[in-house]
């Protein structure tokens, strides 16, 4: 954007208070078909419907959140994303979004494969377990790490599959997925150097391969 000394940390805007949403909001093309897994109250989908005219669907396990999502006009069904994708035909969507939920699924590899079966592209955003604060927390306390991104005590955490930016890239390579775009974020900044150490959140745009 600017000609001055290339900033190491480019500014990222926020959408609905979240920088990963801002990235997703930029990636998704107008008028596309979007499925959001673990869509919460449907805020992102509603924004995509209103701003990009997308055809939006959501899956969410919490009854209360589904109620609020439907009440705001988003077509969401109450269900479990570990198994909820099976009914969809191949290529039903242009984008399947999984935001901050991969680490909570029981079968993350199966979910990723299913995402790329029912969708042409997958957008995956997850908290980076390789962030230096996580590493330092574990190193210094000798206990399961707790940071602002991983705030839960080990016994009540919904996170069951921890992963780092590098872990995701390894899995994508092993599965033959193509990473079309990668964004590593720290707060509202984009991280260019040492992303696995400095990024709090990774956002990946992935396709099923060549």
């Amino acid at each position, binding site marked *: 954007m600017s000609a001055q000394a290339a900033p190491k940390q480019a500014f990222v805007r926020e959408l609905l208070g979240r920088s990963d949403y801002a990235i997703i909001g930029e990636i998704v093309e107008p008028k596309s*078909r979007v499925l959001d897994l673990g869509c919460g109250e449907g805020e992102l989908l509603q924004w995509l419907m209103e701003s990009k005219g997308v*055809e939006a*669907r959501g899956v969410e396990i919490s*009854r209360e959140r*589904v*109620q609020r*999502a*439907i*009440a*705001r*006009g*988003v*077509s*969401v*069904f*109450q*269900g479990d994303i570990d198994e909820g994708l099976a*009914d*969809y*035909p191949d290529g*039903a*969507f242009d984008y399947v979004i999984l935001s901050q939920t991969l680490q909570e699924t029981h079968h993350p590899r199966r979910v990723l494969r299913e995402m790329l079966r029912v969708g042409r592209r997958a957008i995956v955003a997850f908290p980076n377990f390789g962030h230096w604060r996580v590493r330092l927390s574990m190193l210094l306390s000798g206990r399961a790490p707790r940071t602002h991104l991983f705030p839960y005590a080990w016994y009540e955490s919904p996170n069951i599959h921890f992963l780092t930016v590098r872990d995701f890239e390894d899995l994508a390579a092993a599965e033959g997925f193509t990473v079309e775009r990668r964004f590593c974020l720290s707060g509202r900044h984009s991280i260019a150097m040492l992303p696995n150490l400095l990024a709090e959140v990774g956002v990946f745009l992935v396709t099923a391969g060549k």
Partner: protein
Amino acid sequence: MMKDSLMIVEANTVRFDSIALDSGAALAPVDVAYETYGSLNAAKSNAILVLHAFSGDAHAAGISHETGKPGWWDNMIGPGKAFDTNRYFVICSNVLGGCRGTTGPSSVNPATGCPYAMSFPVITVGDMVRLQKMLVDWLGIERLLAVTGGSMGGMQALEWAVSLPERVVAAIPIACTTRHSAQQIAFNEVGRQAIMADPDWNGGDYYGKQPPARGLAVARMVGHITYMSDDSMREKFGRRLRGKEAFGFDFDTVDFEVESYLRYRGNQFVNRFDANSYLYITKAMDYFDLTNGHGSLAAALAEAQSRFLVISFTSDWLYPSYQSQEIVRALRTRNCDVGYVELDSNYGHDSFLVDVAEQTEIIRGFLANTFEKAA
């Protein structure tokens, strides 16, 4: 129509020359009783058809001019309610085969001058919808913004979406199924046998005589048990005794509250419902199978062009959530626009009638969004 937030409503009836039925028979003429609430906009794009459950009638909302009683879904239909009559034009009619103004077995057969009784042709949910379509045509409405109902009303909503896809923008089937299970057929059969075992039923020929009140009351008692849940019955009655401190040690008096309640509801039902209508309508429900003629549920629902909002209730064991989820899954295989939620309620199958706060919130939002999109 509105007075001090009281909506006083009047029943209307329209007569059509004839209707052809799925069985191959025809009825001529055929009357349909209906009520409407709110007003149709100039574009005729705000009409919602509400479809009643097994024992319902056309009086869905407001206060009846004739009886002074509120409609069966008055908590859902009216100004500011889920089906907001300030925004939408709501229609409800009594089903074919019914006994509340629409032609049914208790109606007089013009060929004989006597009530049809068991000479009334067997009818289907498809026939009910065909008659509703005639009414909607007669009202001059090309497309319905929504078709909705609970239980048998939900089955009709599904039938509308599949058999008249271009006439429906959105379908909201609630606490229903695409076809009855063995258990659902079984409960209906117990009701029918209770009626037919009553000597007063007399082969259906009881009009002008003593009706099969005991049989019909027993049928309704069974029905009421299936509409409630174990929890709601425990809460409402427990093992409390009715007007006594100790067991009566006899069969002449009522011991338990729940017995008293069922007897009361059974006897009350006899005053407003025709036993033969009970037979015909439960038969129509048992025959209903959305997959008929399509091969599979997914193929049947592939006919639909509407969006869907499917609702079920946690404590409904008569129309359990898995039946609603089958609808949702079949719609997903075609990537149809469908929302689904299983609402948390203790009231069993009755939930869609009584536990309306959450239902209101989601239906209001869904309708507003549908109306906006359709415009």
